[in-house]
């Protein structure tokens, strides 16, 4: 590993941090802390984008990092915290069932993700080899988190974390999508979050809570 440049080692370090944060989110019960973890994940993501930009000398990635920083670290967490306060969920916790089991399932998903990444990453740049597997693992872990949650807000955080995994895949595997696409994706995420915010109030108005079990009545009859 000695001949790997410093910037790349940094990218790998940040990648493993991202994976660790995904697991932390999987186990976090308190909704407000979940949002903080999401913000932290966004910060690490922005840092890794800067590291890739520095190591490959790609200037457009700095814009991408700035976009991540503004959107994922400042705007969305601020918005979610505000929402949590307005909805009175500061101290709300989820009763997660079988955290050890979820962790084990998560481990299995990570192994699967690395298996899936293997045939792809052999065609990539040097950085891609290890990080693409981590990106896929982040996506799968977010999906697992969404399945395990019973509250609307934490499902949305899972959805946003999934998008983080996508951005990480795009920066490390392909060194960033074209700028117009990145802006489009960011716009979609932002509008989506705002619409969901509106939606929370509609759900609460109707059911007096944000438990998703109220939303499980439509069945085939």
């Amino acid at each position, binding site marked *: 590993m000695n001949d790997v440049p410093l910037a790349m080692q940094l990218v790998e370090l940040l990648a493993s941090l991202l994976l660790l944060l995904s697991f932390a989110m999987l186990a976090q019960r308190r909704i407000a802390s979940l949002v903080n973890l999401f913000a932290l994940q966004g910060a690490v993501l922005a840092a890794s984008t800067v590291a890739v930009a520095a190591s490959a000398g790609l200037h457009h990635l700095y814009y991408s990092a700035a976009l991540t920083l503004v959107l994922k670290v400042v705007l969305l967490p601020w918005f979610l915290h505000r929402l949590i306060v307005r909805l009175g969920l500061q101290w709300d916790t989820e009763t997660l069932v079988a955290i050890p089991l979820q962790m084990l399932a998560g481990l299995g998903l990570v192994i699967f993700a690395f298996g899936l990444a293997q045939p792809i990453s052999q065609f990539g740049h040097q950085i891609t080899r290890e990080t693409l597997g981590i990106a896929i693992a982040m996506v799968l872990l977010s999906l697992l988190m969404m399945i395990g949650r019973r509250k609307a807000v934490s499902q949305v955080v899972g959805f946003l974390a999934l998008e983080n995994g996508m951005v990480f895949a795009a920066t490390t595997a392909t*060194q960033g999508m074209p700028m117009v696409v990145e802006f489009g994706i960011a716009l979609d995420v932002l509008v989506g979050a705002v619409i969901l915010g509106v939606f929370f109030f509609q759900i609460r108005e109707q059911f007096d809570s944000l438990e998703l079990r109220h*939303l499980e009545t439509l069945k085939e009859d």
Partner: protein
Amino acid sequence: MELIALLGLPLLGGAALALWGASARAAELNALFSLVTFLAGCALTARVILGGPLVIGNEQFFVDAFNVFLVALTSLVGFTTALFSRPYMRIETDRGHLTPGRLRLYHSMYQLFMFTMLLALTTNNMGILWVALEAATLTTVLLVSLYRTAASLEAAWKYFILCGVGIAQALFGTILLYFAAERLLGASGGALLWTHLDAVKGQLEPTVLAIAFVFLLVGYGTKVGLVPLHNWLPDAHAEGPTPVSAVLSGLLLNVALYAVVRCKILVAGALHSDLPGRMLMGFGLLSVLVAAFFLWRQRDVKRLFAYSSIEHMGIITFAFGMGGPVANFAALLHMTVHSLTKSAIFFAVGHATQLARTQRMEDIRGLLLRSPTIGWGLMVGTLAILGMPPFGVFASEFLILTTAMREQPWATPILLLALGVAFGAIFRRVQPMVFGEPHSLPLPHSPALLPVFAHLLLVLMLGLGLYIPGQLAAWFRVAAGLIG
């Protein structure tokens, strides 16, 4: 120029209706914007038919025979649905189901939805295609929950989460596509442009493209409503306002399928094998079969026709999967006639449910005596969608079945079985709704019948072959050739 008008008008309409969407003339304004968009679509179509494919706007937009026919279809159905929504929404407002604020949201989002559909169709950038389809979900999610009932909130939540997660898979597929293309085309930004990708598709890395296609198919397939990714579709169709059901079935599913077909062309070119085609055939057959049997269990009239949409999307996906000029031709024809017929049915169903004040089929009776035009509209539309001879669905299904017999004989009995089951399931429900004994009051506003019969007339002409030998056939043939 036409393209600027085509994309700019709905965007402008969205902004204008956000301001005046609750005024007394908002419905007319909505229809007017849709009409002018349709005219712009016609102008663009004429230009592409006469002058060949266009690549414009710094290569960001690409219009060929394949997508321009969808542009024409999308803007036409967008316009007729706006005509239908005028009396429909007026009745809903009179009955107190909607507040002015929600009406404004509805009109504004309707125009923005049209914008996302047209952007998805005309863009040359696979990334923007994804962005536009995701934006289409965002514009319609609040329309599905427009009535704010418990059921509509649940349907909208399901729609958002399932389509959001589904389409995120397509984003990953797009990233992988870019990953493969970047090595050939460089990172300059040309590597996501469809025209560039199409030119080098034979040299793209097959392993990466195969994995990318799985993600793309699952992602966009969720929006097409392919089984087993279809769960959001019946709920969203049943709980939203009926004009929204009409555009979801008539437009959104088509455009999502368009995205799948664009991806299939690239991947089939890179793989030098039939793997993508076989995957499409598998998903298509499964959708047809599962939807046909689920049709028997439906009690809600809008759910019934939502499942029918899944069935027809399955048929089209199967046909695109078979590939070849005849099957592609039939698939394009089926896309057109399904879109026209299904939206006509939803127009008739919309007024029928307003007449009966319920969506439960057992409580909708005797439409023919109550309002003969709605009754006949629903009956004729149902016969058309079930593939009865003089209508266009018959022509396209006949073509698909005969091609299947020749090229994929094993699939023919499955298709025939599903079509038979679907026929029985829908006909036994619609027949008493139209011919039974009535028990309801007339509508306060005269229903919008022009769109219903205009669509059915078009479908009839397509089916009788009055139009097919002319311009349209040549056009479809060119498009079918492009898909390969």
